[in-house]
């Protein structure tokens, strides 16, 4: 596996006068899990949004399967095979679980030449995929708004896994999950990776990162602070890197080893 599935070169993103990203580069290989770490506001979400077609980078290039790509909108990225779980989940509370699950990718069936939304198939697939993640829905018809935060997050993950053909991007997917569901998500990442799909996994939890990551990249204030491969770095070192090195040592002193 020599060719990266996706390569980002010197990505910059400016929002008016705010410079959210100032030259971040990285590449992801097929079947590899890249963990993206960093403090709040480091630019992780902004970075993956340039990957998924939400933002156009102000400067920089994106290569997908070796070809220069110019995603105009998320639909282009999805068509290319990139599925994303956004931090805010991109769910519509008033719509049913199944309608949310298939939003933008609705299954259709033809009856007498007219194309219909295949509700039956949508409901079945949704129930099945949610069951795989360890969530037992009452029915696929219930509104997303009636689910708990973690259940909602699981729907978003299940949806991305289902449609993520080549690259799966997860922006803090485990932030609201219980122990069993977190274990499930990490197991899913592992499974997906073994199928040859590239995973970009954003988290604040070093243990989660160490459990599934092949490479680690730490962002800080819109720049790459450091990168490492699995085995080259211990979790303590990673933790220090994330918190900006020295600061954690002083913190640890004052908090008497509670973190």
């Amino acid at each position, binding site marked *: 596996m020599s060719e990266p599935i996706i390569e980002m070169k010197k990505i910059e993103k400016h929002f008016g006068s705010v410079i959210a990203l100032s030259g971040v580069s990285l590449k992801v290989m097929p079947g590899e899990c890249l963990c993206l770490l960093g403090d709040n506001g480091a630019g992780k979400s902004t970075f993956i949004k340039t990957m*998924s077609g*939400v933002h156009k980078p102000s400067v920089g290039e994106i290569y997908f399967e070796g070809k220069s790509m110019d995603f105009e*909108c*998320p*639909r282009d990225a*999805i*068509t290319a095979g990139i599925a*994303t779980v*956004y931090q*805010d*989940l*991109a*769910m*519509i*509370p*008033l*719509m049913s679980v199944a*309608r949310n699950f*298939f*939003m*933008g*990718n*609705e299954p*259709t069936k033809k009856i007498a030449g007219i*194309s*219909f*939304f295949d509700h039956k198939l949508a409901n079945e697939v949704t129930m099945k995929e949610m*069951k795989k993640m*360890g969530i*037992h829905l*009452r029915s696929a018809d*219930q*509104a997303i*708004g*009636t689910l708990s935060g973690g259940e909602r997050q699981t729907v978003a993950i299940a*949806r991305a896994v289902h449609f993520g053909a080549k690259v799966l991007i997860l922006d803090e997917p485990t932030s609201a999950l219980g*122990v*069993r569901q*977190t*274990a*499930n998500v*990490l*197991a899913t990442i*592992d499974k997906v990776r073994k199928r040859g799909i590239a995973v970009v996994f954003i988290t604040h939890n070093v*243990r*989660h990162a160490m*459990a599934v990551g092949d490479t680690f990249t730490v962002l800080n204030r819109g720049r790459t602070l450091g990168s490492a491969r699995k085995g080259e770095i211990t979790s303590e070192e990673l933790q220090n890197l994330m918190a900006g090195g020295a600061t954690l040592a002083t913190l640890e002193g004052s908090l008497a080893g509670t973190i």
Partner: protein
Amino acid sequence: MTETTSTPPVKTDKPDERVKTRSSFREALIRPELGGICGTILVFTFFLLTASDSGMFSASGVMNWSIVSSQFIIIAVGACLLMIAGEFDLSVGSMIGFSGMSIALLSVVFGLPMWVAIIATFILCMGIGALSGWLVIKTGLPSFIVTLAFLFILRGLTIFAAISTTNKTIVGGIKDAAEGDWLAPVFGGKVFTGLFQWLGDNGWIETFERGFKKGQPVVDGIPMLMVWAVILLIFGHWLLTKTKFGNWIFASGGNAQAATYVGVPVNRVKILMFMFTAFCACVFATSQVIEFGSAGADRGLLKEFEAIISVVIGGALLTGGYGSVIGAALGAIIFGVVQQGLFFAGVESSLFRVFLGAILLFAVILNTYIRRMITGEK
């Protein structure tokens, strides 16, 4: 904590112990249209009790309020889909006046064949619909403001065009211009005339006793207006609930950003819905112009509010993302029946507004309650 990667024990498919089983009757009741259904029943009961001997439920009486209701349905279907997609169109009433006048001027004053005038008007109006949609998207302004501007622009243009070409605000002569045209009957004609004649001959519906229409049934066919209402209703309901595009309509109105993130072409959906609303206004106007034989610059006044009220009575959420076309049609029927029913019952017509306000309030309160039941919000 060590991460385990074993999957949890698989449960069997027994019903979830954490769900109270709701009876299927209750389940069937909890739907966006419930407010509309209750309102319709209430309104019909009221008039059956108070106005049954006034001729409201005779063949011609039924036809009377059905036509008015159909008019409301036509514009309500457009307004409903647009509202679910998260936008408003306040220019519907002005669009009705504008398109009617456009047909009249093109055919009567400029002498174009009627079908050319009708098709050109549809293209023009849907173009204007697309323009307001495009403006809403490009400027990011609320559609409320953009279409309010079009409310004035279109009404002003209508009056200006009528005065500057004919010196009048009412342009007649459409009946003659539509004579022998192939497209005009699609909007102004009647169907099933044979069936109604047969019903009349057999005495099942009343016939005229004297005059030049002696022997003809009082209701001599179903006006195309009603056929259009049914077609648009079925189309709207099918589009919203049974197609992929319907899911996009819900998604665009529910949360445009989330919808964009997962690849829904939100802008396209919204612009198309603006165009569909304009199309519905055009159907309304064309039928009216051909039926009346004239176009008036003040036609369609306040129709936008009547459409929006019908939609809201029908259970749609003003903020978008939720609603039902069937509900909107029931709202339109309530509207039409109340308006004509009070006339039959001989009630002072100013009370229409009181009655309407009360129904609106009742339906909206009920709908809010139903919506909470569905979504589980507090």
